[in-house]
């Protein structure tokens, strides 16, 4: 890994961490645990700038750091979700060969993220499992909406990032 790439990735990780922490502290009224997932924007940018490996690295590092600076027990939820969602976006990006735009990638990443957390909840909290599964439709709907918005933001950012724009 050359120095430039390392520095850029570190910057992306710190950006994503700050976004993630900021977002969880914003005093905007929102339904309980639903979040936009702004850090996903950075994962998408890492994917566009480099490759799957970069995207997964940025997502996982962000989850770890945000966990350390935020609420540690939440790592059990955020880390697996970061891993699976960045992996799925990377694989889809490669497999779909430009057929899915960055918005499609973002939406699918968000859905995988939410469903992963649901699975963790299902296995970790043994209490009242059927009511946990009943949340699935709500979580998918929320993920589609949130993924669409973060995809739009990522698209806007990438349009204004010269080095990335030339590669997409």
């Amino acid at each position, binding site marked *: 890994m050359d120095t430039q790439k390392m520095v850029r990735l570190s910057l992306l990780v710190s950006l994503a961490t700050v976004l993630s922490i900021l977002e969880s502290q914003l005093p905007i009224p929102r339904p309980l645990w639903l979040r936009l997932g702004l850090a996903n924007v950075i994962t998408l940018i890492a994917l566009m700038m480099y490759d799957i490996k970069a995207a997964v690295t940025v997502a996982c590092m962000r989850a770890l750091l945000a966990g350390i600076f935020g609420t540690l027990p939440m790592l059990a939820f955020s880390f697996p979700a970061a891993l699976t969602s960045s992996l799925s976006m990377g694989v889809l990006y490669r497999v*779909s060969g*430009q*057929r*899915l*735009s*960055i*918005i*499609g990638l973002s*939406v*699918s990443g968000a*859905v995988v993220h939410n469903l992963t957390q649901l699975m963790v909840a299902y296995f970790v909290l*043994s*209490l*009242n499992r*059927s*009511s946990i599964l*009943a949340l*699935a*439709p*709500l979580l*998918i*709907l929320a*993920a*589609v909406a949130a993924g*669409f918005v973060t995809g739009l933001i990522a*698209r806007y950012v*990438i*349009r204004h990032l010269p080095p990335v724009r030339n590669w*997409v």
Partner: protein
Amino acid sequence: MLRLTRYDKLLIIGLLAVALLCLGIVRYGVGRTDTVVVQVDGEEVIRASLVEDRRFWVDGPLGKTEIEIKGKRVRVVDSPCDKKICVRTGWIDKPYQTIICVPNRIVVRLLGSGDKDKLDGITG
């Protein structure tokens, strides 16, 4: 690719369809209940069908709690406790809904299709 493609739209529509389908299943698929269970201090004391309208009294540490079944719904009519949270919960009629009176140690819950004769949880 930065523009929204046909495949994006297909993906989004597909996901929305799946979500709505699941929502339908959750709402109407498991939405029936026909049995109410009353527990005192964790011990099941009454298991009754919702089909028959009736009123009965259950003994707790504080005294008698009056419970009513009417029109496939259940409520606590009267309770010897302080805050009457159980009474104010009102009617319940969906699977897994619960009325709890902590002071009088009474739990009224509706069974779902998933937990007939099965444990609903074990705690250490």
